């Protein structure tokens, strides 16, 4: 209780400011200062959110989005870490792929949808592969960086004491690259959410992005806000949850990509 009190005296502004905003918003929409058609009251949005959750609509869409993120992330992680490790270990490959990646990476993932839908069967698989594109690059870049920043002295010492081939890789190179691999995975997961929403807006009939877009098209404004909050909640969960997870898993490293 006292800990809570102390925490509150330190963070009362950070807690109070969003609360104040919600109250002000509620009041402004109720009195007509804000047009309720555009800015429905927070309490109305909450009611709609409850209703969407109660009739199961929300869970279906959320599950769909999460499944897509899961597959895309798995695909990006496996390919990204493998390619990243290979690029970190072999200079030739790195030099060759760098310019290719440099051109492709800045292209927004959603633009890959046409290309991917030519490449693989259109539909669910195309959505997942498109979602994986940006995450793949982030993970590959980060992993390459991870291998390259390992102290040369450490590697030389290991080689000197007889570590070669697989042993060198498994006991020195991989653990040394791990912190940055994790950073890449964290960024990749965050981007998977960003991309999946865009892809769902364009090309899916289910999923949170599709629900958001559909609510806009039929002007169900309250559902639009409700969906937005669910997406924002997922975003916070993914980015802050994973940061906390990393702190437990690799407590000795500072996260280089901390914004």
């Amino acid at each position: 209780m006292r800990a809570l009190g102390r925490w509150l005296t330190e963070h009362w502004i950070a807690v109070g400011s969003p609360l104040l905003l919600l109250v002000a918003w509620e009041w402004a929409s109720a009195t007509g200062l804000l047009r309720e058609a555009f800015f429905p009251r927070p309490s109305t949005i909450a009611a709609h959110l409850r209703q969407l959750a109660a009739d199961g609509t929300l869970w279906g869409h959320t599950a769909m989005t999460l499944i897509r993120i899961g597959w895309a992330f798995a695909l990006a992680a496996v390919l990204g870490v493998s390619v990243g490790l290979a690029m970190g270990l072999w200079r030739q490959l790195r030099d060759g792929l760098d310019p290719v990646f440099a051109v492709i990476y800045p292209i927004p993932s959603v633009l890959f949808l046409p290309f991917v839908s030519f490449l693989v069967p259109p539909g669910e698989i195309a959505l997942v592969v498109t979602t994986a594109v940006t995450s793949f690059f982030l993970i590959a870049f980060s992993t390459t960086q991870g291998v390259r920043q390992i102290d040369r002295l450490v590697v030389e010492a290991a080689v000197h004491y007889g570590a070669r081939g697989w042993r060198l890789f498994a006991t020195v190179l991989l653990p040394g690259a791990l912190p940055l691999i994790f950073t890449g995975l964290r960024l990749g997961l965050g981007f998977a959410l960003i991309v999946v929403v865009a892809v769902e807006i364009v090309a899916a009939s289910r999923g949170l992005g599709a629900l958001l877009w559909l609510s806009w098209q039929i002007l169900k404004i309250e559902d639009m806000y409700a969906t937005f909050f669910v997406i924002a909640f997922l975003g916070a969960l993914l980015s802050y949850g994973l940061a906390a997870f990393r702190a437990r898993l690799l407590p000795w490293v500072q996260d280089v990509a901390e914004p």
Partner: protein
Amino acid sequence: MAVLLPAALLVLWEICSRFAVVPPRYFPPPTTVGWVLVDRVVAGDLGAQSLVTLARLGSAFAIAALPGVLLGLLMGVARPLRDAVEPYIAFIFPVPKITLLPFLLIILGVGEPAFVLTGATSAFFQIVISTLGGVQTMDPRLLARLFWKIILPAALPSIFTGLRLGLGLALVALVAVEFIAAKSGLGHLVYRHWQMLSTPEMYAAFALVGALGLLLTRGLRALQARVLAWQEEVGSL
């Protein structure tokens, strides 16, 4: 290797497409795409649409840059402001900014302001966060007196990084917005030519977006390395 591997990939694609190993309707040979690219940039709509995208990018960046840097600096200097605003930044930052598009479309109507603002928000939050990160590292006791002499110069690398990342994010958001909702710009061209299955034009527009992104990211990073030469390392992403 830096020339060899990309060239080999292009040649491989060319051959596969010419001999119909892959369907040329979906994967036209790079030389065809190249010709279309040159032809359409000079004479056709590709050049004009690139300018549309660039104009949007310019407006979005202009809207986001100054307020973003100012808010970041103010939050760094004034603790109460930071406490009050940080929850919103933390809440919005991980959200895909494209989700703001329908809200802006409703409030502002379908049109340029909504498109541009979606790109601007994307850049804005990145700029605030990067700027704030640069100010935060200062000793608070020095803050009041030494703003112009120490704090601002010390924050400059972070501000530049924020602007650079922000510009990249704005481009990504804008092209996505064009792909989804606008009726002009490079993103829309990719969408339209995809729907019409005019694939050489589609790939040409696609390549232009890549070139634009490359130019912005690499160009600005090189600029940053020159202007802020004392800075140890310019982030790699």
